[in-house]
């Protein structure tokens, strides 16, 4: 019953239109001091069993093939502490 987190962010060289739109809006909303914003996805994956190496390998494969689009995105898998 472990929870594994998959974070998916656009590769740095890929245009992040969403992040840019937010960053551009911030000064208008009265927020200063932010130089950039990037927006990505966060998945909480609940496992039926423990987050052992085997399960993590599965989640990594899941991230690679389904959760992230590796043509334009990077992902990171961590176990929630």
């Amino acid at each position, binding site marked *: 019953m472990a929870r594994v987190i998959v974070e998916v962010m656009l590769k740095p*060289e*890929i*245009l992040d*239109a969403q992040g*840019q*739109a937010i960053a*551009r809006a911030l000064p208008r909303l009265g927020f200063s001091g932010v130089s950039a914003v990037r927006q990505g996805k966060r998945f909480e994956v609940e496992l039926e069993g423990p987050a052992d190496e085997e399960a993590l390998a599965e989640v990594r494969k899941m991230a690679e093939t389904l959760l992230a*689009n590796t*043509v*334009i995105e990077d992902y990171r898998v961590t176990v929630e502490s």
Partner: protein
Amino acid sequence: MSEHEARERATLDTVKRAQDTPDERQPYAELGMKLDEYDRVREILGRRPTSSELAIYSVMWSEHCSYKSSKVHLRQFGTKAPKSEALLVGMGENAGVVDIGDGWAATFKIESHNHPSYVEPHQGAATGVGGIVRDIMSMGARPIAVMDALRFGAADAHDTRRVLPGVVEGISHYGNCLGLPNIGGEVVFDPCYIGNPLVNALCVGLLRKDQIKLATAPGPGNKVVLFGALTGPDGIGGASVLASATFEDESHAKRPSVQVGDPFMEKLLIECCLELYQADVVVGIQDLGAAGVSCATTELAAKGTGGMDVRLDLVPLRDPSLRPEEILMSESQERMMAVVTPDDIDAFMAICAKWDIPATVIGEVTDGGRLVMTWHGETIVDIPPGTAADEGPVYERPFHEPAGQAALNADDPARLPRPEDLRATLLQLLGSPNLASKEWVTSQYDRYVRGNTVLAQPADAGVLRISEIMPGAEETARGIALSTDGNGRYARLDPYAGAQLALAEAYRNVAVTGATPLAVTNCLNFGSPEDPEVMWQFAEATRGLADACKTLGVPVTGGNVSFYNQTGSTPIHPTPVVGVLGVIDDVAGRVRSGFTAPGQKVLLLGETEEEFGGSEWAHVAHGHLGGLPPKADLEAERALALVLTEAASRGLLTGSHDLSDGGLAIALAESALAQGIGATVVLPDGDAFVELFSESSARALVTVDPESFDAFAELCAANELPCQCLGTTGGDALVVENVLEIPVAELRETHTSTLPGIFG
């Protein structure tokens, strides 16, 4: 100077350095250039090119930008072009422009984004829409609608389930965000497109006839402005590597970086450009598509004085580490380049600021006859721009008929067993992926936005009214109609006839709405031009299309060629996709699709022969492809269109639908499905199977009020168009007497459940 800058300086390939190091080895081959092409660049420059110059020549001389393999064939579209008063701007500009009357003009074009849509379906398709929309904007027009012609592998193939939803979502998201109604298109499945989906996007725009903009940079002293999105490392090498070289399965690692679109930026860019045109502060304009800054600067300069100075280091970057060569090749989306007089530059910048569009003066028009680019003061490009833009290599590629062509044509579908149960056959075809309802796709597209859509899916052609689109248009009652069509199976059997049949169908689809077909755009999707058999298909298809355009009196205004659509050495079916634009004088008189009221006479126009080569029946029932496609009878097509438009303008028609894939059976079923109104008909004498499923061209189904029948029959007679009364609309079933009876509800269930069943 920072350490980084110092290093950059040291490796900068300047013109001076090129002169000093004439023998330095350059990666022309890696950039897709042949040795003789590279030698030609050296000859033009009288020295080796700098790496920036090599970047420019390699993208500008790529197949994608230079049309080097297709040029000799495409010329026919000009030499054989019919005289047309309507043609205001023909081939060679960003898009053709057609006079639609009352002082207004329409510009339209179709373009492929096939390879990128395979690599990254969503972004590939989205940026395909974005690119064609900018082409239309660069003519000075307001983009007013889009269409999409799609081809995928077998519907139930694993990869189709990856590619199709992504492509549809990409088109949907980008087009919807721009507020461009999607008014039509095609979705076709065939195993030949597995690994090579076709994504052809069409955009149409509206402008005043006297306000056409061209891609030109006249007037020394005028400013060159780059505006829109920042430049990043998008699709670098895309133009030469991605768009024109075939990629292998194992090339995962070589996947080039893809372009990613920002439809919001594009929407702002549209509104900004329209305001710039309104304020009359643009001398010349060019969109940035494939080959980005390289293409925009060389083409603008070549069509202007020939001279331009550009400070490349002024290009605003999303990624500050980009090198000049990369900036030149970047395909970052949502960018435009304009030429502006010094007097207007402030007004220009103010309008960009209003729309939050970054704009930067990066250069100036000169009378020096050369395109000169500097990077922090060092000259890195110094070329005659016309040599890159217009004087690319031209190949007369060898071609010959494919080895198996004769055997393929000899394999007549007459040998196939015919069905006993025609009811079951009709349902089998109606539910097959190619004929099933495309609602799963089209319901993801906004067809209503801006309130000018008169007809959209599932009509034969999209129709828009003009009067409310732009200020000043209130007076015109006109509308435009557009359809795209193409049948790869027909073209495989006979590329000459196949291209003509594609044109004939689009032409017919426009005519059944009541519009008069005016002009043509086309997207030619083929395998590798280096394969003589593919080249034969290409040569035949272009010849067929050019001849047909001449016969039908509709000029080609532009288009696009996509080569290298093949997996390994197996090319796709040759797939010419043809778009036809028509005009309807009073858009209120447009004819709706299918059966629109009970008690109407159902008439079949045209002649039915036994023609099953490449038919939907042979494909679905037998997986068979052989024989010859239906005859392309263009004179008959012309007579049919004349009758349809004349009848529409006299208000004689209450509904219409053309006959195409699946023949009369499918046309009857689709007509009944349009509004849930059945019909009872009697087939003409002859074999019921042939009458129902043959795919003879130049036919249509129309309905008329019984009171109008005589007048309509007379009109047909006067034009020697066969017209047979089959029966009457009404009831809630499609009844073909003595043959079959199917409730409309059952037709609907069969028609609508296929794609959701596959794609969820």
